[in-house]
């Protein structure tokens, strides 16, 4: 028996009803396409998160106040950061940061509203792998003396001073006049933060001038970034910081009022929050594939019924039941594989279009293409087997009498 001829019979059977065959594959097309789009959207989201966190700098520990404890947001102080800098071994430096409300900036006759101001300590460029383009960053001493200086992002420098050098210029941030001593290198927008459009100010100046609303603990910090010498020392530094802060805050190290995370921890946490969304998408895609498969089974059953006489004749003139089964199984496999192929094309195209115009980042997962294709083939066999079996077990005497 020549299986290429059975393939031909199956193909002719499908071509007999082109529109119906296409509509039947539509379910699989949508299912496969949604699997690919779903995977590329979640891969894109995860890549964006990882990029955001890696952009903070390498070998970082991130110390933040524990969320959900009343008052804890004010317990992490600048002195804590200084104590870490003095006592903890194996670190390159630290950067305590605090972000007041956005401020209005005036300089050179230009007024800019809602500019982000970031209070940092002196190691900030080094800790965050964010060098200067020109000038210098302020020193620890400048910070201690609450010197009225500022380092500005490269975009802001162009906005305010154009071609002119920003160094030595005076800018008014809120009501405070600051002298520009440096301009940061261009970093661009990373994860919705426009690094080039911000003003970097000694954190003690921020405490004094910009944190006016929080009267208690005016020197509380939002985050302390600690740059560790190497990846191997991350654990040791984590332990030291943990014990130091627990002692300073007089809390049980097992129940701290702060958190210490590595970048990997932060990535994992962020991914956990997107996982639920991703799982939901996976279910939707999986169910649409299932619905596509049921559609194929439905049409195949109709087709077997419609062609009962034909099947009866084929069996009467000598077709083994297995040949009839193969014929209908091939029909459903052609439907699902054609649907799978079209679904791959549409899914890849949709992923690219979403990435380009949809305002969301997408990243096509190469594995998703064979995965979706194999799933489509599996659906063809699984949902084609029952109708093909119905055809194969027809009694030719009954089938030939069928009207």
């Amino acid at each position, binding site marked *: 028996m020549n299986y290429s001829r059975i393939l031909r019979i199956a193909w002719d059977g499908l071509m007999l009803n082109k529109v119906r065959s296409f509509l039947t594959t539509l379910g699989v097309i949508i299912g496969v396409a949604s699997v690919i789009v779903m995977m590329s959207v979640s891969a894109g989201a995860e890549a964006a998160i990882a990029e955001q966190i890696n952009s903070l700098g390498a070998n970082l520990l991130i110390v933040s106040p524990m969320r959900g404890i009343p008052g804890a947001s004010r317990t992490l102080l600048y002195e804590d950061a200084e104590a870490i800098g003095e006592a903890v071994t194996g670190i390159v430096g630290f950067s305590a940061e605090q972000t007041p409300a956005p401020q209005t900036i005036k300089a050179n006759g230009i007024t800019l509203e809602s500019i982000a101001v970031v209070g940092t300590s002196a190691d900030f460029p080094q800790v965050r792998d964010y060098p200067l383009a020109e000038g210098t960053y302020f020193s620890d001493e400048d910070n201690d003396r609450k010197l009225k200086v500022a380092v500005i992002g490269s975009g802001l420098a162009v906005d305010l001073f154009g071609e002119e050098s920003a160094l030595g210029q005076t800018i008014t941030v809120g009501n405070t006049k600051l002298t520009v001593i440096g301009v940061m290198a261009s970093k661009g927008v990373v994860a919705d933060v426009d690094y080039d459009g911000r003003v970097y100010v000694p954190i003690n100046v921020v405490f004094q001038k910009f944190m006016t609303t929080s009267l208690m603990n005016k020197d509380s910090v939002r985050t302390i970034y600690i740059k560790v010498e190497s990846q191997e020392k991350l654990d040791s530094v984590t332990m030291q910081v943990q014990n130091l802060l627990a002692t300073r805050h007089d809390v049980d190290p097992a129940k701290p009022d702060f958190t210490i995370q590595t970048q990997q921890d932060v990535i994992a946490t962020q991914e956990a929050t997107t996982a639920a969304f991703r799982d939901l998408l996976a279910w939707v895609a999986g169910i649409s594939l299932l619905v596509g498969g049921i559609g194929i089974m439905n049409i195949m059953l109709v087709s077997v019924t419609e062609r009962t006489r034909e099947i009866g004749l*084929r069996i*009467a003139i000598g077709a*083994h039941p297995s040949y009839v089964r193969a014929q209908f199984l091939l029909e459903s496999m052609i439907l699902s594989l054609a649907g799978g192929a079209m679904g791959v094309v549409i899914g890849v195209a949709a992923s690219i279009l979403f990435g380009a115009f949809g305002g969301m980042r997408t990243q096509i997962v190469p594995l998703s293409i064979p995965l979706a294709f194999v799933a489509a083939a599996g659906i063809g066999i699984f949902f084609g087997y029952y109708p093909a079996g119905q055809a194969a077990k027809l009694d030719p005497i009954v089938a030939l009498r069928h009207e």
Partner: protein
Amino acid sequence: MTATLIEVKDLKKVYGVEEDSAVYALDGMNASVDRGEFAAIMGPSGSGKSTLMNILGCLDTPSAGQYILDGRDVSGLSKDDLADVRNQKIGFIFQSFNLLPRLSALDNVMLPLLYDTREAQPQEMQRQRAIAALESVGLGHRTGHHPNQLSGGQQQRVAIARALINQPPLILADEPTGNLDSRSSVEIMDLLHDLHKQGATIVMVTHEPDIARHAGRILCVRDGRLISDGRGGNNPCLAREVSA
């Protein structure tokens, strides 16, 4: 090779499993047909002639008894083996032609070759055989036509060509003229006569005495048994049909 092509011995077909509700469609049938014979099977509805025809065509299996076709007992064969027997030993001619509407006459004739499990001939040789078969039924000029482009008589000729393609020892015709007008019926019967003259063994089921008289032998079936093996006018089946 023996002269006997078909032999049935004490053939029984029972429907229903329970002893008291069992119906004997065939109740101990004995008959034989020699090679080169043209036999008609007649009988009123319910006589068991359709059941006999289905068993002779290997579409059904007997409950008891033996069916020897071309020297081989086929009563206990598997489904696949029966399919091969149908493909290689029997050419079917149906009342309603049973051509596949979307295939050309030529492709319809070639259909049995598709399911032949013996070593396949090259495609071109198969085509030539199919064309020759169509020519032998007078349709050499209609090979590319689809069934809906052919008259009833022409469609039945295509079906006869299909029955001949594998050169089976037995031609089984089930009411071959049942769906045809009288002129086409005459043509088809003439064609069967020609086949018979060329040496074909033909077994035909019919309820029309005029058609049955074409056969050299008329097997009359009643209540699942063969009651007469007569030839010509004194056959009870013919008498009954004529008086009815």
